[in-house]
């Protein structure tokens, strides 16, 4: 067991779970989507991305790509949230909440692919 693999798996999985936690619930109800959870998802996703830097294998490259997609989606969700709360003046209406949550839903998909890759990598790894 290598500590590096534990940390890597931990962050990849945590990114997906936090993302899922934020996403779950009625898409237009702001009460069901906690902004702290979104913040945590962004931070953990960024860390997971950096952990994937510099791996030159094929699967490493796909890992990095999925993480970058998740980052992009989550940052877009954050910007939508900033627009709703700071710029539009209307606050978290049902529509604004729906757009933030649906963007994070896209990120969730990318994170699920990431987890799937992790599982594939683990299964196909045979100790030689």
């Amino acid at each position: 067991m290598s500590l590096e693999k534990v940390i890597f798996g931990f962050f990849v999985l945590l990114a997906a779970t936090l993302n899922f936690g934020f996403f779950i619930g009625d898409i237009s109800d702001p009460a069901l989507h906690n902004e702290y959870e979104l913040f945590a998802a962004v931070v953990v996703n960024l860390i997971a991305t950096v952990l994937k830097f510099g791996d030159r294998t094929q699967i490493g490259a796909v890992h990095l790509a999925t993480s970058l997609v998740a980052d992009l989606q989550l940052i877009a969700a954050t910007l939508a949230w900033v627009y709703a709360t700071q710029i539009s003046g209307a606050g978290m209406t049902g529509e604004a909440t729906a757009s933030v949550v649906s963007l994070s839903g896209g990120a969730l998909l990318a994170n699920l692919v990431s987890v799937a890759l992790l599982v594939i990598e683990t299964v196909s790894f045979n100790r030689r």
Partner: protein
Amino acid sequence: MVARQHPQGRTTVARPTEPSSTIFLILRRMRAPLIVLIVIFAVSVLGLTLMPGQDPSGRPTRMGFFDAFYFMSYTATTIGYGEIPHTFTGAQRLWVIASIYLSVVGWAYAIGSLLTLVRDRAFREALALRRFTRQVVHMREPFLLIVGYGQTGQLLGHALDSLGRRLVVLDDTPEHVDSLDIDAYYADVPGLVADGANPHMLGAAGLEHPQCEGVVALTNNDEVNLTVAMTAALIRPSLPVIARTVSPVIEHRMRAFGSPTVVNPFDRFGDHIRLALHQPSSFQLLAWLIKGEGATRPERGRPPTSGRWVVCGYGRFGHKLVDDLRADGLEVTVIDLGSAEDGVIVGDASEPSVMARASLSTAVGFVAGTHNDATNLSLVAAARKENPALFIGARQNRPRNAPLFATMDVDWLLVPAEMAAREIYAQLSTPLTWRFLQEMPARGDEWAAETIALLGAHCGSQLDGLWKVTLTAREAPALMAWLDSDAVTPRLGDLMHCPHDRDQRIAAVPLLLLRGDESTLGPADDVVLRPGDQLLFAGRRIARRDLLDTMTNHVVSEYVLYGRTVPAGWLWQRVTGRKPSTLR
């Protein structure tokens, strides 16, 4: 990173690095600092949103994520716009103090890591390789790949560069590659510090580049030269390879792969000595032509052809030299520090007692051939003192000692580095010259003396240039009708008239005529020319321009070949009805 099969079935060496490798290296090294930075930011922002605050009316409030991120961004980057959206409470300030110090540590760590990376050797090598590979890939002109850029390489590099040839250099010594930046070159010469024996590096240096026109292996290590010659022969079998070696064994192994041109300076020196002993004029001509453009005629040496020689230093050079001298029936006494062979005087030649045993007073020639320049100089001085009439030869190892050897005024000076560079230069710059030099000794000493006299009569004691002329429609359009005509026999002599005054001859001497694979040395004026012939001329620069005029201008060629003056302009040609007959 293994050799892969080309679509055409040819083996190629894979590039050692993809262009993105430097980016990967940066990313890999920056992983830890970036994560630290992200964590510090996240903790600071999160803490700031949790700290209890107050609005101006004193009601408890909390900072939003957006404000907290905004605040941390300008605080961590030391910009500092003040406390927004409301004045901070004590608890918030306490947290901000902690975050400021945390973020300073984070930035210092990240920037420090980045700077370390830039200073890092592996990173710089990766950058240099990347830059070099890109430069080589973008070469659009034919270039020569020189492996080993020491004395010989630099001499050759400068000579070829001033000819307008492009080069790519590979050497494992950083100083040699640095000399590319320090010395003045006309063209940009890409250079890389790398092991030439590594096929991947040869690949990066353009061995597989379609514009690569040849490989020259000049390292001081014979094994490396052998590997380079082998690699080139295996990867690009048709590519010309020139390799230097001083060992006959390596030479033999080199020839096992393809047909490289092997240059052995010691061996060549032996050939030159035999030539100088038997055919002083041939040797004089060789020495003159091989020196290249602008060389003044060397004095004819008169080495003694009978009598006893004394040779100091019995290494590879000494062996070769002594063998050559003995093969010519000369008696040779050898002095060496540690040779166990029979008939060798063992001892330090600079000691008077050792020198006395060689009895220089009865010898006719003396060669100081050790690998140490200071020793060679002192030996020459000592030998001269003993017997001023001696014919003196010396070996110069380092270029910086050239002035010392020049003041010693030795009769024969061997500079192995220079000799190899000149030979390779002659082969690469004008292959016809090389052919001439190879075949010239067979014509005998008298013929060489006549050629020297001819050159002296036409060009003086300084050789302005050697140039090649090909009688094709491309190079000599104004001569094609004359060459093909049935009415006249095109003879070489007709071509040699001066375009200004037909009774005069241009100041050039034809040295060689090459037709197909058949060569004629020193073609006479009545030699019949044919289209496609190649001619090698030696002569003045003005003669070269005159000849070029004759070859390309129909009006000039009409005058030179037939002595007829025709108008140059189209209108006057129509009006007078006189058109150049060379115009088809």
